[in-house]
C-alpha cells in the first residue's frame, strides 16, 4: 500500500511536470517565431494600450486609430489600461503584449533594458520633425525607443484675482528669484498662502534647474549633490521657512492644482494638464499661466514626455510603424491637442498651437529651457525616494537629502 501511494504521487508529479514543460515549451517557440515573421504580415490585427487622462483622450485616440484602420485595412483595437505599467509587464512576460502603447521617459529604460521595446524610431519617415530633446529623452544606449507623442512642462500658475487684490500688476510678474520671493510674500494672507506645490522633486526640481543643476551633469553622470542643486533646494527651503510656500499636503490638498483651485494658494507650479482641472472642477477661479522666474543660471523647468512604445514581440511591426507615423503627423497631433490639451511633439506645430491656445504659450516656451528625467532603469525608484525625503525638507539640510539621492543615483547602471 505504501508503495502504491508513493508510486502514484510520483506519477502525479511527473504528469504535472510534463504538463508544465509542455506549456512552457509551447510558449517560447511561438513568441520567437512571431518576432522573426514580424515584418512579413502587415494585416495582423493590432492592439493599442493607452493610459488615458479621461474620456476625451480615449475618444480622440479611438477615432484616430479607427480612421487609420479604415485607410490601411488593418484591424486595430484600442484598450484603456487601468494600470498601464502593470498591464504592460503582464503582456511582456506572458508573450502577448499590446503592439503599441504609451510609455513615459522615466519608464522607457526599464522596458528597453530587458528587450521588450523595439527601437523603431529610426525607421520613421517623420523622425526629424520631433523636438530633438524629446527624441533624446526616449534614447537609451544610443537607440531611440519611442516616438514622442506629446510633452508637458511646468510653469507658474497665478490666481489673477488674488494678484490684483495684493496690488500687483502685469509688470510685477517675477523674472528673478528675489522678485518671486517678494510677490509670494505679498500674496500670502491669513486666507491663503502665496505658493503651493506638490511635495515632490518633479516640482521643486525646477529650482535646481534654475540654479544650473540637475540630477546628472553634462556628461550624463550622477551629480545630484552639486553646489547648484544644493542652492536650488536651499531656496525652496527658505520659501517654506518664510511661510510663503507650503506643500499641498500641508493644505490638505492632493496636489498643487487642488490647493490652487480651492483658493488655498495664490500661485502653484504645474503643467498644462491644470487647464483641464480648472475648466472642470474650479470654473470660478480666474488664472493665468506665466513663465517660471529665472534663477542664478537662467530659466529652467522640468518636462514630461509621452511617447509611443512598440513591443519587440509584436506580430505586425510594419503595421504598427505605419500607425505611429499616422498618429504623430501634424494634423493628428493638432487634433489631439484640441481634444485634450496636450502639447504636440513636432516643432512645426508650435506657432499653430500658440495661436490656438494663447493662454498657455508659457508652457510651450518653457520647452527651450526644460530638462527631462534621465532615462535609465531604476530612476523612478530614486525619484520616489527623493520625494519621500522632500517631506522633511523644512527640518533637514538640503545637502543631506541630495547626498542620499546621489548615493542612490550612483547605484544605477549608466549614471556612475
Amino acid at each position, binding site marked *: 500500500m505504501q508503495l502504491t501511494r508513493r508510486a502514484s504521487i510520483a506519477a502525479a508529479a511527473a504528469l*504535472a511536470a510534463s504538463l*508544465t514543460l509542455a506549456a512552457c515549451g509551447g510558449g517560447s517557440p511561438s*513568441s520567437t517565431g512571431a518576432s522573426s515573421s514580424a515584418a512579413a504580415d502587415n494585416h495582423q490585427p493590432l492592439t493599442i494600450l493607452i493610459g488615458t487622462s479621461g474620456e476625451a483622450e480615449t475618444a480622440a485616440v479611438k477615432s484616430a486609430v479607427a480612421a487609420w484602420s479604415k485607410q490601411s485595412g488593418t484591424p486595430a483595437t484600442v484598450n484603456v489600461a487601468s494600470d498601464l505599467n502593470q498591464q504592460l509587464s503582464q503582456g511582456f512576460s506572458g508573450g502577448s503584449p499590446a503592439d503599441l502603447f504609451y510609455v513615459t521617459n522615466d519608464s522607457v529604460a526599464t522596458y528597453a*533594458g530587458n528587450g521588450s521595446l523595439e527601437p523603431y524610431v529610426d525607421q520613421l519617415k517623420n523622425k526629424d520633425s520631433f523636438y530633438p530633446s524629446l527624441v533624446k529623452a526616449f534614447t537609451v544606449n544610443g537607440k531611440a525607443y519611442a516616438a514622442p507623442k506629446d510633452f508637458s512642462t511646468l510653469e507658474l500658475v497665478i490666481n489673477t484675482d488674488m494678484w490684483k487684490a495684493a496690488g500687483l500688476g502685469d509688470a510685477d510678474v517675477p523674472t528673478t528669484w528675489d522678485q518671486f520671493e517678494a510677490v509670494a510674500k505679498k500674496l500670502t494672507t491669513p486666507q491663503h498662502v502665496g505658493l503651493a506645490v506638490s511635495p515632490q522633486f518633479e516640482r521643486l526640481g525646477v529650482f535646481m534647474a534654475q540654479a544650473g543643476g540637475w540630477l546628472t551633469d553634462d556628461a550624463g553622470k550622477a551629480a545630484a549633490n552639486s553646489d547648484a542643486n544644493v542652492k536650488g533646494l536651499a531656496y525652496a527651503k527658505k520659501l517654506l521657512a518664510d511661510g510663503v510656500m507650503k506643500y499641498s499636503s500641508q493644505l490638505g490638498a492632493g496636489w498643487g492644482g487642488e490647493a490652487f483651485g480651492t483658493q488655498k494658494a495664490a500661485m502653484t507650479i504645474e503643467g498644462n494638464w491644470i487647464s483641464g482641472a480648472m475648466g472642470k472642477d474650479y470654473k470660478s477661479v480666474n488664472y493665468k499661466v506665466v513663465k517660471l522666474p529665472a534663477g542664478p543660471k537662467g530659466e529652467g523647468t522640468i518636462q514630461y514626455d509621452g511617447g509611443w512604445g512598440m513591443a519587440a514581440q509584436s506580430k505586425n511591426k510594419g503595421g504598427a510603424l505605419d500607425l505611429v507615423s499616422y498618429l504623430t503627423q501634424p494634423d493628428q497631433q493638432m487634433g489631439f491637442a484640441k481634444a485634450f490639451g496636450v502639447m504636440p511633439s513636432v516643432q512645426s506645430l508650435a506657432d499653430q498651437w500658440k495661436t490656438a491656445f494663447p493662454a498657455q504659450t508659457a508652457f510651450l516656451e518653457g520647452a527651450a529651457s526644460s530638462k527631462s528625467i534621465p532615462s535609465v532603469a531604476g530612476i523612478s*525608484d530614486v525619484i520616489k525616494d527623493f520625494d*519621500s525625503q522632500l517631506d522633511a525638507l523644512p527640518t533637514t539640510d538640503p545637502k543631506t537629502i541630495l547626498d542620499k539621492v546621489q548615493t542612490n543615483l550612483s547605484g544605477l547602471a549608466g549614471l556612475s
Partner: protein
Amino acid sequence: MTTSVLKRPSAAEARPRRRGPGVRGRDGIAGWLFTAPVLIILGLFLVLPILMAAWVSVSSWNGLGSPFQDTVKFVGGDNYAALLAKPGLAQTDFGTSLRNNGWYVLLVVPIQTAVSLFLAILVNQRVLAARSAFRTAFYFPSVTSSVAITVIFLFLFSASGTVNAIVQWLGGSGVGWFADTRGVVQQALGAFGVHAPSGSGFLGLTWFDWISGPSPAMLVFVVMAIFTTSGTFMLIYLAALQQIARDIEEATIMDGANAWQRFRYVTLPMLRPTTFTVMTLGLIGTWQIFDQIYVGSKGGPAKTTLTPAFLSYSQSFINNAWGRGAAIAFILFAIIVVFTLVQRVLLAERGSARKAPRRRPGGRRAHG
C-alpha cells in the same frame, strides 16, 4: 489487516482471494480518483507556482517571455543579497517595508485577538437580548470586501472628510496630521525635544528609524484591520466558547470562583488552542497586507505604508525586477514561518499550566 472483515463472508467461495486484493486495489484507485481534482488543482495552482517563483528568485529573469528560456541565467543569491546584504535603495526600501509591517503586526494581532475574544464573550451571554443581531453586526465588516472598506476609509479620512471635520470641530490642527510622515513614537519623542539622531542601523535604516513607530496613515490601516477582521475571529472564539460545557462553569461557581477568575483560570486556558489559531491566522494575514495598501495609499505618504507584499508587487510589475520581487516574497514567507513557530512555542501547553486553574479557585475557597 482491515480487509479481513470484508473477506470473511465470502471466504467459502473461490472468489475471495481474487476479490480481496481487488477491493483494496479498487479502493486505492477510487481514492486517488476522488482526490485527483484537488491534487491537480493544488499542484497546478499552488505547488508549481511556488516552485516557479523559487526559481525566479534565484534567476536573472527580467519579465520578457518565459522564465525558463535559455537566456535566463542562474544568479544564485544575488537577489537576496540586494535586499539583505548590499547597502542601497533596494535594501532601504525593504527595511522600510519591514519596519512598517512590523509595527502593523505588533499593533493589529494583539488588539484584534483581544477585541474578538471580548466580542465573542459578549455575544455568548445567554441573557443578552437580540444576540443574533449583534453577532451579525459584529461579523458584517468581515464579509464586506476589503476594497470597499478601504474606499470608505479614504472618504472618511480625506481632507474634507468626516474625520477631519470632527478633528477641526474639536479644535484640532487642521488636515496636515494625516500626511505627517513621522512615526507616532517619533512625534511623541519630538514633543519632549528628542530628535532623530544619526547612527548605525540595520537594513539601511537607523535604529531610531526602526523604533519611530507607524505613521498616522499606517495607524488608520491598523484600525481598519481590527475593524474588519475582529468579526471573523469572534466567530472562531464563539464556536470554541460554545464547546465549553456548562457543567465546568457550574463546578467553578460551586468552587466559589468569581466571574473574572472563571474567565482567567478556566475559560482562557480552555481557549488556548483557539487563541493559537486566531493569532496564527492573524499573523499570516497581517504580514501579507496588500489590497488595502494597493487601493488606499500605494505605500504613501513618503513610503510610510509600504509593506513587503506591496514592495514585492511593485518591484515585479512596475520595475520588472522579478527576481527581487520573488525574493521578497520568500523572505516574507520565512518571516511568517518563524513567527508562527515562535508563537507555537510560547503558547504550547505546559504541564504546570494545567494545574494552576484548579489550585487557585480552590485555594480561594479555603480562605473565604
